[in-house]
């Protein structure tokens, strides 16, 4: 298991990314639109922090339980980050589609109004 231990690096980077995820998640409270993303980010951040913590512990203790806990948390991190990415993509798609739908709706109203005006003018003329 010594070979495994030697390959574990970048723990500080993982902790840095975890802190950023948690802080970003906490800041999302200021906007209702991105609160779901913030919640997912906090879960992901906590799991990533735990992954880094257990990997660090494993490096010191070489305890199998620590490595198992690290992988358990890593799997959870992947799951939450996956959902975070998925929800982000859906929100981006909505942001792109909604204005088009809105403009289409406004367009339909304008066409309807023009039609109404023309038919009113037509009937008053006869």
């Amino acid at each position: 298991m010594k070979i495994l231990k030697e390959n574990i690096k970048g723990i500080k980077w993982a902790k840095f990314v975890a802190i950023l995820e948690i802080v970003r998640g906490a800041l999302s409270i200021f906007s209702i639109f991105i609160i779901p993303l913030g919640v997912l980010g906090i879960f992901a951040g906590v799991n990533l922090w735990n992954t880094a913590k257990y990997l660090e512990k494993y490096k010191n203790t070489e305890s199998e339980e620590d490595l198992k806990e690290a992988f358990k948390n890593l799997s959870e991190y992947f799951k939450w980050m996956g959902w975070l990415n998925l929800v982000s993509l859906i929100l981006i798609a909505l942001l792109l589609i909604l204005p088009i739908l809105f403009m289409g709706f406004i367009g339909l109203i304008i066409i309807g109004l023009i039609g109404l005006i023309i038919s009113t003018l037509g009937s008053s003329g006869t």
Partner: protein
Amino acid sequence: MLQRESNLKINFMNSLKGYIKETGWAKFIAVVDIVGGILDIPIGISLIILGTKLGRTNLGAVAIIASIVSATLIILIGILLIIAGIKLWSTANSLENYTNTEKEEDLKEAIKNLSDYFTWIGWVNVASLTISAIVLIAISLLGAMGWKGISSISGLD
């Protein structure tokens, strides 16, 4: 003694397998990172073109510097994201291989790629924070310039 150690190792490798899940999600994140990274490059180039056009207006040097620095960082983020995505894809692949073959080499490879992924994604975050700071400073400077202009026109000076 050696036999006992070897058996313990096999048992451990077997039980560890049960804790490795969600590699599908990892691959999905990797694809999003790579696609996002690829998209960042044309966005960065467009920002440089926009910056040079804004430079000809009254916004001048602030707009040029802010847009060129931000654009460079966006392109850099794109490249870093692509590398991080590839590393994460390799991690997921190695983990999947490990769950099938139980070879220690695969686990070693997965941990190595995961460590690299954390490093690259850490740099992506550093670059993103730098862009946020530049954008904030540029907005403040442009706001101050705008306020100065309004004050001079309205005679508030």
